[in-house]
């Protein structure tokens, strides 16, 4: 089979294969070099209204709804901090 291939055709074939491989992997090389979507994919949580707490400022001029779990985590951290006023 190979004896029917001329040297020119062989070089062209080899060049074609190299270019094909390069194009096939070019997007991957670009993404690895400068990742624009490295992940991870964000899982959207549907937390029901019953799990949210309303927090208001002292003057009640601003109110926000916060997830209970986040408030709990913050309070756990604060409780672990030393009491600076003591």
């Amino acid at each position, binding site marked *: 089979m190979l004896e029917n291939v001329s040297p020119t055709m062989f070089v062209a074939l080899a060049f074609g294969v190299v270019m094909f491989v390069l194009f096939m992997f070019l*997007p991957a090389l670009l993404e690895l070099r400068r990742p624009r979507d490295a992940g991870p*994919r964000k*899982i959207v949580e549907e937390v029901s209204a019953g799990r949210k707490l309303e927090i208001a400022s002292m003057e009640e001029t601003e109110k926000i709804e916060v997830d209970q*779990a986040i408030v709990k985590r913050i309070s756990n951290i604060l409780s672990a901090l030393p009491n600076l006023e003591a």
Partner: protein
Amino acid sequence: MIAEALQLLSLMLTGLMAAYLCRHYFFTLNVLKNSGKPRKDIASESTDFQPSVSILIPACNEEPVIGRILQRMSELTYPSDKTEIIVINDASTDATGEIAEQYAEAHSFIHVLHRNEKEGRRGKAAALNAGLKRAESEIILCFDADYYPQRNIVGQLVKPFEDPKVGAVQGRVTVLNEPKNLVTRLVALERIGGYRIDQQARDSLGLITQFGGTVGGFRRNLLESLGGWDESILAEDTDLTFRVYLEGFKICYAGNAECYEEAVENWRAYWKQRYRWSRGHMQCAFKHLFKVLRSVNLTLKQKIDAVLLLNVYFMPILVLLSWIISVPLFFLNSQPTLGIGWAAISISVYSFVGNFAPFFEVGVGAYLDGRNRAHWLISLLIFTFLYNIPICTKAFADLIVSKVSGEKSVHWDKTSHSGDGNSYIMN
């Protein structure tokens, strides 16, 4: 004569590979077709159907990650009076047990089952069976220690059990430490293809939805009637999958019930994990293939899918065999049995269309997930496929040796977790 025999064998192997490639296309096109429709598994947190749930978390030396999952368990939105968390501390030599006990002291619904050196370290299946004996709820869910579920995941996972024909449920797994390195990014792509497309399509088409061993669960009475997890099988999840279907139940894929996992972070860990999966899967093929074919509880399309699923880890070995056959075929240089034209057409179609199929599946999965750049790495999946060839070949060889020698015990090579995924948690 030899050349013709090899050509026929090569065409048969091509035909087998084409069957799997057609399956990839079929699944991908099915998910694409249904992507615009509201999914039946979308379940907002329902308060109508809330059975009692036992969550089993087997843990052997999971000190870097056990605290994270237990913290998350304490934040679940499912009623705590209907939930019990059972941590099975499987003879850990690190602080896994102590950390778990701290959470148990703070939360009455968290319990720790300690297994000593004598009874422990016999694999995940043995640990889960120990937890099952302790469980008291109607539904048994399983999570690996390195997982980080969404807070309303329990409600999402139990909802399918409203259908009495559903014996088990499987949620979706998303890689948490995806940005860490190339291995984690490629594993994440594999997960996208496996869950977003494969599992979704199998569920939509009424085929064999696979229980993946974690982020899923069973009816307790069904699990007990099946005898729990088979401790002699490395892929105890695949084994249970087929036992559930053979018993006349089905497994539902709850695509909205999502959980983060820590993927393996280097090629050595990847080898160990995939070796375990492939050897376990092959054990299941030997155990269930004829039962599946004879079963009156499976439809024809389920039987076809079951056969393809059971033998999937043999495919890399068959690809290697076809490459080996092609070498003498090249040098023998004889006329193809079917004529050179037909051979050229079939090989060209297979190469340009067939080989594209698994990449197409992953690419569509990434597109449906809105991951506009993640699929740029798809071409690198060829290297994971090539890596799987020696893994599956070794697994098969070891399995044959163990069957010939009569060795029944299996060694569970546990995946180690670093806990590095914590830095990627967003909620």
